[in-house]
């Protein structure tokens, strides 16, 4: 059924593309410098400059430290989430996985296991959770949105089952101390090294590997991707495992930074992450997006957040700003392309009339 019932669909939508992409796309340098994520980075820089001027204390290593400590969980999860959304899927269960990990750490540590084992088991839990999502989406073929709404409830529920109402706080001070320690005078948290590794890993994976090339292709068109031998389902499965794993790492960070393991840790974080990723220029349609853009998106929300805290503006404003940015970031492109299309049509109308003229040659054919 699909093929035929939708041929029409593709045609019409392709028409849209053909027209939208007129006049022809940009090339090399300008493409990079004017690309969606480049713009995101400019906005970030602009904001940082503005904040440093407007807020006396903003430009200082202390800001760097506190700001980064706050955004690290989002930054971490946003990396694999970017890849997932680029393939046209979504994972809403990330925050719950982080919560589950945190809860596990609590009870295991309470039970007297040594920290090494605790960490390993907790992260493994994340891997398994991700694999469950991956299995249901890639193998069983269920819509990821529905699946991860389910596992969002499930994993958070398991967190409650594991640790209940208790909170575990007696983690080794050395360790918790390390998680908020800074790199000398820079004010950059030591853990950023680890975060950086994750960012580079996913950045390279997406932008410089055959796998990454495949992701973009299948994000735009699963069918076309299949026709060049890309293993669509296998790729998706591993991406969900990745989000699970990284969410677990975020959970570990959360637990040790706040030295408090609770079932409700990181709750509601999923929407923050997705908002940041979309703001970073990733298209929910799949296919479009880049790691640098997303990093800029995360940092932008983070800095606005922190700037508002510094100037003691209520979170209310932050919420409204986040929402508006999100909507603007998605409607601006479609508004622009609408204008483009309109212009293109006008140009076309202007230069077609000569076509029928040549059409009159059909008279000749009629002759014989």
């Amino acid at each position, binding site marked *: 059924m699909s093929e035929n019932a939708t041929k029409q669909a593709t045609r019409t939508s*392709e028409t849209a593309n053909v027209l939208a992409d007129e006049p022809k796309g940009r090339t090399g340098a300008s493409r990079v410098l004017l690309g969606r994520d480049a713009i995101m980075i400019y906005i970030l820089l602009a904001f940082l400059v503005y904040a440093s001027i407007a807020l006396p204390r903003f430009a200082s290593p202390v800001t760097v430290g506190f700001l980064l400590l706050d955004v690290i969980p989002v930054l971490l999860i946003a990396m694999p989430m970017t890849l997932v959304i680029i393939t046209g899927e979504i994972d809403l269960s990330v925050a719950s996985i982080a919560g589950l990990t945190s809860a596990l750490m609590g009870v295991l540590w309470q039970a007297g296991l040594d920290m090494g084992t605790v960490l390993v088991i907790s992260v493994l839990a994340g891997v398994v959770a991700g694999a469950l999502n991956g299995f249901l989406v890639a193998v069983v073929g269920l819509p990821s949105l529905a699946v991860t709404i389910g596992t969002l409830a499930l994993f958070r529920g398991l967190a409650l089952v594991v640790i209940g109402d208790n909170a575990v706080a007696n983690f080794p001070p050395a360790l918790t101390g390390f998680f908020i320690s800074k790199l000398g005078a820079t004010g950059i948290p030591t853990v950023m090294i680890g975060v950086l590794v994750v960012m580079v890993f996913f950045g390279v994976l997406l932008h410089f590997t055959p796998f990454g090339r495949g992701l973009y292709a299948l994000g735009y*068109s699963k069918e076309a*991707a299949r026709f060049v031998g890309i293993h669509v389902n296998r790729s998706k499965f591993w991406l969900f495992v990745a989000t699970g794993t990284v969410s677990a790492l975020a959970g570990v960070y959360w637990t040790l930074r706040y030295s408090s393991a609770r079932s409700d840790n990181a709750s509601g974080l999923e929407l923050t992450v997705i908002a940041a990723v979309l703001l970073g220029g990733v298209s929910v349609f799949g296919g479009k997006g880049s790691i640098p853009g997303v990093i800029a998106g995360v940092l932008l929300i983070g800095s606005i957040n922190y700037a508002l805290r510094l100037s003691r503006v209520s979170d209310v404003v932050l919420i409204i700003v986040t929402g508006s940015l999100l909507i603007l970031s998605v409607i601006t492109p479609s508004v622009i392309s609408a204008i483009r299309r309109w212009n293109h049509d006008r140009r076309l109308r202007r230069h077609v009339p000569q076509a*029928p003229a040549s*059409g009159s040659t059909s008279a000749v054919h009629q002759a014989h």
Partner: protein
Amino acid sequence: MATDHEASARTPALSLTGAVKAFGPVIALADGTIEILPGEIHALVGENGAGKSTLVKILAGLHHPDAGDFRVDGEPIAFRSVADSKAAGISVIYQEPTLFPDLTVAENIFIGRQPRGRSGLISRAEMRAGARELFSRLGVPIDPDRSAEGLSIADQQIIEIAKAISLDAKVLVMDEPTAALSGVEVDRLFAVARSLRDRGAGILFISHRFDEVFALCDRITVMRDGRYVATLETSSVTVDEIVREMVGRDIDQLFPKEPAQIGDPVLTVRGLSRAGVFADIDLDVRAGEIVALAGLVGAGRTEVARAVFGIDRYDTGTVELNGRAYTAGDPQAAIDAGVGFVPEDRRKQGLVMDLSVGRNATLTLRSALARFGIISSARERRAAEKWTKTLQVKTGSQEYAVSTLSGGNQQKVVLAKWLATEPRLLIIDEPTRGIDVGTKAEVHRLISSLAARGIAILMISSELPEVLGMADRVLVMHEGRIAAEIDRADATPEAVMHAATASMEGSK
């Protein structure tokens, strides 16, 4: 016009003159001209890509022509939407069925105008009855209460037909309604069409099958490369005349087939079957040989190709390349074995339309371009340039989205993508579907030069001239089986057509 006296006699129910429609770079329709009289069945014929469907979509109010004169009952008219066209009494059967998989068959027929009971609410009973009545007129046993999901393409067509005739419109437009229908179903359809004509409706009938056209239609309008060619009285023309009008050029000079010496078999398929789609397919393609797989739309050719390339699984049979079998159902395995596949739907399967030309051209090389798992953009660019140059793809830059290219150049990018893998076997499904005539010749030249380089080529095509011009051997498929094997020497249009339509005993 050949039919002026008639035309003046009755005002046409519908007339379109000099309609123009362009999609970005592609001019789909340069001079769309058609005139349908009340109470006539009017055929519209032309090669693939001639612009028939585009013209239909203009009549349907789906496309707005960039220029041209459009009249209904002699009154100038401009449709803003499909609704307008419906209101004007035009009902259309599109070439590709547009059904709602989640709705029941009955509802698909009556959507938007469901019969309402006293309560003012939709009366399912009446709807069911209506559908039943229509199906009995068409003589098909389809359960009106089943959902449209998973209907065979033939049944989808029938429902489209039922939908269209139930409107009993002034003008009924049918774009290749018979493409997927069996003989019996076609006869029923014709009966219905005639009765509608006798009740004064005008009917536009599009088909690639001349026997049907001559059996059913009063007048024939021929189109070529988006232009009106001529309108002729069926009674006063022969198939050959029509074909000449359609093709409008001497076949041999258009397809310069280079001689290539034929080597050992590259692809060997034995007893390949897939329940419900094709059965017992045996075929060989030798190095340097071009084998054409001909047949009507829906004959199962694409499905065979998909199975060989591993897009679909097959139930039984063997597929070997140079005597070695490769994993079924895994395109990557096929590619590694040396198979390339240019699919029939360029926009959906052949290319990732939103990706750049360069990326598309190197998509098959992903791992080949990587060193230690990392792709070097430099090598990627070089590879892209090399192959797009070899095929003379006309594009401003490697960075342009491939969707901005013309159909022909898009097709070249697809070919480039596969040549880059240096395949031993290249399967090409509908190589020139919807490609403007200039580029067509280029593509054909390319294909035969590939063969000359010793690549084995399996070409699926619905265009007879193409098949006859290119192929060393023609395999004709009918209803999922290979109906005939014809050598280049004795491959005539008649021979192929008859085998394809099984209209001659012995062909099956």
